[in-house]
């Protein structure tokens, strides 16, 4: 089960990154070099009770982080974690009966000492327990100094001690030196064999340390970005004040404010319409991002969230990679659509996001494609979002519209577009799409003559050019 989950993630990791997951990962401040591997292999969790446990422990960590009495402890924890290296390979080698060298033994000893210290530090937090590595420390610290250093100590062998004593008197005696090396190698072999008995515990300790590192980073991230703890539900998903963390930060840097939105949906298709620059794609990516975050065990960007779990998330959005692969944007989109349809045949508990389906082809056929997609998704009750600019999408489904330009907006190149648009989503019963593209173009400061020409030609849209040519004369 776990393997299966990770497989989904590896396949979908590029999707998560594309959705702005890279921003979240950059903000995630893990301390150890070890945790990076685990972050790149986060499981996509579909099991409700596992996730609930995960959110509860995150909540507890946030409380601990917010408590000022703990700040000194957390600084110490960060210091300890920053010294944890990725020694999974060394442990693996020992498990397979290979002999570790001094650097590996040093790293294992340091890790064991750190785990021991962490254990005592966070004992009262009652978040997580680490396996007992005292036997490992005993093996690698024969002089009981508890100092993070290592070599093949004299204490391991009286023969070695005697030889080294001789060696220090006779400088540059290579035969003598060779002899000590042979004994050292023998000891390394013995140490590795002894450690093998504890390799499972060592591996477990690494997993736990990485988990703990990510947990603290996750909790700090939730505080920093104002994320909320999702409640897991079965069918319904609803967000209050959903926001996109990356765009919010970007706007903040430009002294602008982000307008969060409220949204509710069930296990069925939703069609989103709205003016250009109305934030339809942002809604799509933010919803997909939040679903990913939730099922990776992270808090989500909203003030309140209730989320139904899905088995898979599928995207169909513009991707520059396609050109590189020699596919036209339409071809790439259709291949993607086909993947989605195949997936719906296998599993209906998936979440699909399609941004402006069939936008690169003629409107007549484009509309038919959108209608067909909606009907397919409707038949199977697939949780999905599709954005479109097309009119006459007549398949009955839930329609949402970005409210759009506020009343009394003055249309000129000097008007701020962001301030003139109400980004909230409203239920819409019609079948037509808003017609404010020319207004937006005007506000974007497009050439006046061109705008006038467009407005004039708009009148002849539904007739034909003969009539237009006649008026021209």
């Amino acid at each position, binding site marked *: 089960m776990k393997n299966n989950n990770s497989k989904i993630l590896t396949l979908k990791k590029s999707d998560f990154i594309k959705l702005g997951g890279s921003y979240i990962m950059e903000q995630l401040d893990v301390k150890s*070099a070890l945790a990076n591997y685990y972050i790149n292999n986060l499981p996509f969790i579909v099991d409700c009770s596992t996730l609930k446990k995960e959110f509860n422990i995150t909540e507890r960590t946030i409380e601990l982080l917010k408590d000022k009495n703990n700040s000194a402890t957390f600084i110490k924890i960060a210091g300890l974690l920053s010294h944890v*290296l990725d020694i999974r390979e060394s442990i693996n080698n020992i498990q397979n009966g290979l002999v570790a*060298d*001094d*650097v590996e033994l*040093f*790293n294992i000893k340091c890790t064991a000492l750190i785990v021991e210290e962490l254990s005592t530090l966070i004992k009262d937090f009652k978040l997580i327990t680490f396996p007992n590595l005292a036997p490992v420390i005993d093996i690698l610290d024969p002089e009981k100094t508890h100092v*993070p*250093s*290592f*070599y*093949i100590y004299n204490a391991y062998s009286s023969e070695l001690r005697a030889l*080294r004593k001789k*060696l*220090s008197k006779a*400088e*540059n005696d*290579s035969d003598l*030196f060779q002899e*000590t090396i042979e004994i050292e190698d023998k000891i390394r072999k013995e140490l590795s064999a002894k450690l093998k008995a504890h390799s499972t515990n060592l591996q477990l300790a690494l997993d736990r340390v990485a988990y703990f590192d990510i947990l603290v980073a996750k909790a700090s991230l939730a505080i920093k970005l104002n994320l909320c703890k999702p409640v897991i539900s079965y069918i319904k998903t609803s967000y209050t004040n959903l926001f996109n963390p990356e765009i919010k930060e970007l706007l903040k840097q430009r002294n602008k404010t982000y307008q969060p939105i409220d949204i509710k949906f069930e296990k069925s298709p939703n069609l989103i319409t709205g003016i250009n620059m109305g934030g339809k794609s942002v809604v799509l990516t933010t919803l997909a991002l939040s679903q990913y975050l939730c099922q990776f065990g992270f808090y989500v960007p909203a003030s309140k969230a209730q989320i139904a779990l899905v088995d898979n998330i599928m995207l169909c959005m513009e991707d520059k990679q396609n050109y590189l692969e020699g596919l036209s944007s339409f071809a790439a989109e259709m291949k993607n659509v086909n993947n989605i349809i195949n997936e719906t045949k296998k599993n209906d508990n998936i979440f699909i996001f399609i941004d402006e389906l069939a936008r690169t082809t003629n409107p007549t056929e484009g509309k038919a494609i959108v209608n067909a997609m909606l009907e397919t998704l409707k038949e199977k009750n697939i949780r999905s979002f599709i954005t479109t600019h097309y009119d006459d999408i007549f398949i009955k489904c839930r329609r949402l519209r970005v409210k759009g330009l506020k009343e009394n907006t003055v249309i000129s190149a000097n008007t701020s577009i962001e301030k003139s648009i109400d980004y909230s989503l409203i239920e819409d019963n019609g079948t037509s799409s808003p017609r404010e593209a020319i207004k937006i173009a005007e506000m974007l400061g497009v050439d006046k003559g061109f705008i006038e020409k467009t407005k004039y030609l708009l009148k002849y849209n539904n007739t034909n050019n003969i009539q237009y040519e006649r008026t021209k004369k």
Partner: protein
Amino acid sequence: MPFISKILEYKSLSIVGLDKNTGKTVTLNYILKELSKRDVIVGITSIGIDGEGLDQVTKTAKPEIIIYKDMYFTTSEKHYKSKQLVAEIYDVSSYSTALGRLVTGLAKNTGKVLLSGPANTSNLVKVIENNAKLGCNLTIIDGALSRMSLASPSITQATILATGAAYSINLNKLVRRTKFICNLIKIERVDIATFNILKKIGTGIWIINKNESLEKLNINSVFALFLSQNKSYLDKLKNANVLFISGVLNDKLLEFLRIQEYIKELIIVVKDFTKIFVSEKVYKSFNNVGGKLRVLYNTKLIAVTFNPTSPEGYTMDSKKTRKVLSENINLPVYDVKDIDV
């Protein structure tokens, strides 16, 4: 014992060579031997892949470095494994060089080690800081070919320059080059008042006007000074007392300034001598017209060592060469093969 007690006045020392095979490693071995007799904790590393059995560039045999008991040394994992002494590991770096992570060990007896330390200056600074944490009183860095920058005062406080027949067996040429480098290292620090004004500046090119106001020129490097659209900046120099260049100083600017009328009234300031990329000729004529070049930070040049043997086998007259060198640079010059003389 020449110059050893001087070394102990500093926390960090770099040994740089005028060229390959100018006796850097012999000098280092001598210093380590002398330091081992004293009550100090020493850490040693090198920059980049140095300390190979065979020299990386000229493929000539190269002496190994002898580390004495109770000295710390930092070398790559690969060379740590081939060390010929017993050592206790105290640190393993989280970053990796071409030859693996860096291992810092404490020598338990005396023996030979191949040194291959960090390949860049920021990691070099980390090693020095880490050594201080381990209790080292002094960290010594073995330099590499054309890596003068590690002698920058931002990395090491003091420097020893190794010169030798490997650069040129022509006495005049060798003396001229050595003298030039020594002169750069010994460039005077700017007066304390100006230093206090300039010390907080990070990047860019700045001038202090005659009315003592500090002004930033809106260009990134001296190369941009000569673009036609930046002509106005050059004009501003007429009314300046000080021109501060945080980056590199080049020939073109010095040549330009040399022929200006205001040259005697202008002080040019750079961060340290490693930022000066000018040829000997240009620097000389700049000095001749009374141009003033100063640094914010300077390195203490402790000594110059001389290796009379070139890799091709030529040997220069050690006594005579050292005498001429010493007269020219006003510092004692030691023969690496026979320093105590």
